[in-house]
């Protein structure tokens, strides 16, 4: 007998359709006279949208994850990058992406659509080179613009919000607009830019509100499902359809599930969070957790990569960052608003110290009522794995139960499903849980 009622998400099919439509729009952009842009999921994706409503994106990380989900295809792409001469220990999203270009094969069918320009940002060592090589692999004639966001931590990890840090990023955004006009020959439309920037703010704010609802017991969303929903922020957070989907479909539905006590995992006995990207080809490990009555309610990664929060160090708590009171009216104002908005992103902060991330994870564990934490030592992403062993120690020190497992988000050769499930068994058993079939 299930402990809680459950039901499928009503907006699930719409989410799937929106995602596929978005990938098709990128593929078919040229047929309609539009432009294709490639870049990181972390990029200020609203900026190129000032070039017109026919500008379509593909972002490398979710694209790499989609490749990884298709194991035979991913194996082909990874082999292609290795044969080309790239090292096997590089970011596995990046290698899937490059492999896709090298094989000239789009993961959603057809040839890989060549981008007109690349617009990205420097976050980690991989992102510093990802699109430089992608542009070269595409023939060397794809212009590249990169925004550096290494401006330092945001409050409360910095004593105050330093204006010069915001200006450093905002000025680059301003310059990039001139650059885009030059390489595309199009005139930039500030009204379209303001609209897209506001959609960015809307979607990242709303995603944080949705994640807040997962504090409820039982959790209305499980992390395996969350991966299919947070993805819109990584695909293109400034996309109007995505912002509307979050605001008008997902948020009300999750709120309704909380009100009615609808559980994602009907036998919820214990709650955990994970960290960093999962091994995308093996999401069944989350279903395996459920067989122990364990729901993964999210992570700093799924909450804070595309959700915008304010962290209170004293209260050890998060609140969704309130949207700006006024909409920007000038290009300068809009660039400044965006820089300030995104520099507080939780997933940026750990680059400055693993201790910041430990503090935030500790807060999630307390406020989302977790019983344990499962850390993925993700060989595929140096950026988000940096300091993770120190996070483990910090969390243990704060009294949390922590399990680690080793794997790779995008290279199935570096993940052992059986061994990982065995680890889960031992850990969950030591927490006093019993597997459902044995109850």
């Amino acid at each position, binding site marked *: 007998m299930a402990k809680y009622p459950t039901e499928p998400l009503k907006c699930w099919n719409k989410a799937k359709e929106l995602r596929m439509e978005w990938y098709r729009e990128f593929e078919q952009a040229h047929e309609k006279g539009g432009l294709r842009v490639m870049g990181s999921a972390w990029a200020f994706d609203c900026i190129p949208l000032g070039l017109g409503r026919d500008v379509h994106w593909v972002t490398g990380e979710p694209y790499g994850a989609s490749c990884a989900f298709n194991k035979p295809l991913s194996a082909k792409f990874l082999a292609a990058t290795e044969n080309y001469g790239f090292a096997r220990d590089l970011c596995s999203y990046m290698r899937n992406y490059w492999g896709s270009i090298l094989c000239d094969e789009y993961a959603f069918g057809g040839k890989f659509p060549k981008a007109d320009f690349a617009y990205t940002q420097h976050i980690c060592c991989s992102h510093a080179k990802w699109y430089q090589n992608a542009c070269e692999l595409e023939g060397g004639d794809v212009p590249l613009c990169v925004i550096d966001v290494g401006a330092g931590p945001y409050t409360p990890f910095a004593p105050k919000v330093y204006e010069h840090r915001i200006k450093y990023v905002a000025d680059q955004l301003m310059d990039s607009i001139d650059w885009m006009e030059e390489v595309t020959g199009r005139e930039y439309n500030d009204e379209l830019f303001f609209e897209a920037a506001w959609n960015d703010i809307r979607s990242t704010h709303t995603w944080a509100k949705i994640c807040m609802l997962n504090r409820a017991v039982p959790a209305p969303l499980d992390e395996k499902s969350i991966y299919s929903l947070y993805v819109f922020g990584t695909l293109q957070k400034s996309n109007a359809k995505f912002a509307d989907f979050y605001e008008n479909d997902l948020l009300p539905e999750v709120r309704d599930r909380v009100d009615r006590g609808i559980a994602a995992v009907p036998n919820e006995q214990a709650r955990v969070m994970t960290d960093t990207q999962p091994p995308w080809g093996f999401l069944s490990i989350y279903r395996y957790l459920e067989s122990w009555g364990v729901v993964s309610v999210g992570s700093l990664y799924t909450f804070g990569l595309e959700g915008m929060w304010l962290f209170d160090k004293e209260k050890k708590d998060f609140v969704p960052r309130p949207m700006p009171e006024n909409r920007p009216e000038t290009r300068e104002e809009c660039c400044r608003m965006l820089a300030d908005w995104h520099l507080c992103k939780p997933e940026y902060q750990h680059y400055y110290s693993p201790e910041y991330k430990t503090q935030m994870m500790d807060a999630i564990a307390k406020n989302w009522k977790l019983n344990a934490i499962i850390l993925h030592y993700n060989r595929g992403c140096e950026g988000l794995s940096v300091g993770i062993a120190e996070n483990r120690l910090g969390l243990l020190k704060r009294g949390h139960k922590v399990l680690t497992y080793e794997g790779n988000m995008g290279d199935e050769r570096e993940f052992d499903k059986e061994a990982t499930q065995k680890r889960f068994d031992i850990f969950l058993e*030591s927490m006093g849980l019993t597997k459902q079939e044995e109850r």
Partner: protein
Amino acid sequence: MAGGIKMPGEEKKQQKQEFWRWTESNWKNPDLDWNDAKIVTAGIDVGSVSSQAVIVTDGRIFAYSNMRTGSDSPESARNALNYALKGTGLPEDRIDYCIGTGYGRVNVPMADRSITEIACHARGAHFLYGPEVRTVLDVGGQDCKAIHCDGKGKVTDFLMNDKCAAGTGRGMEVFADLLSVPIIEVGDRSFDIEKEPEPVSSTCVVYAKTEATGLLRSGWKVNEVLAAYCSAMAERIYSLIERIGVEERFAITGGMAKNKGVIDRLMKIMNIEPMKTEWDTQIAGAAGAALFANTLVAKGKGRK
């Protein structure tokens, strides 16, 4: 032929011998008679390399076996149980409850339930070494675990080696075969050297074999290569223990506990004295399972 490096100029035909093969054994407690027992339970630990069965009567070890695991887990479990029962006169159907553990625990046909080997090793170590044990190191055939437990043998924390299984029992077996040194002699011979060499640079069996071959060709003696490998394994195991930290007192279970070449070097690095036991350290998991079963039956939760 099985293993062994033929050195240049070496003409002598090497004898076909499986150097990795350790002696299987069984034992019966001469002080116990199962006819007097109220509760008879069994624990069967099907590991990746070895399998053990332990029979417990009223909370005391009555008999056990220690064998190699074959390619078929149910058959390995069956063989281990038969070997433990051999010569005891105890009929299998007298066993009140049986728990499977280890790598193949879900494939133990006679088990009433399974419990993970971490829990069983902690419980088993608590029995074999005494209730003072707080940290258990289990170096098994293909993985390595460091376990913290409380005064009742309950797991409070644990760590396992990450994906690579280097530095575990099977690696030592492969190395013994490579160097044509019977596995039971590895420990002693690794100390029969003039000066402690540097560890080999990797405990990965594949890389270590390559490096060992190179060392032999460059004139190292077999015992020196053994010492270099044992030393590397000790460092690898220490890196795991260091991550979880040692809470006194410290006990070692699993087959590697019998290899002084690794364990003595490990203890030197850790600068502590391990606990001692008269029991076969390989039976810890199965003993823990049998003791769990005994507790369940005593609480009326058994099958009968």
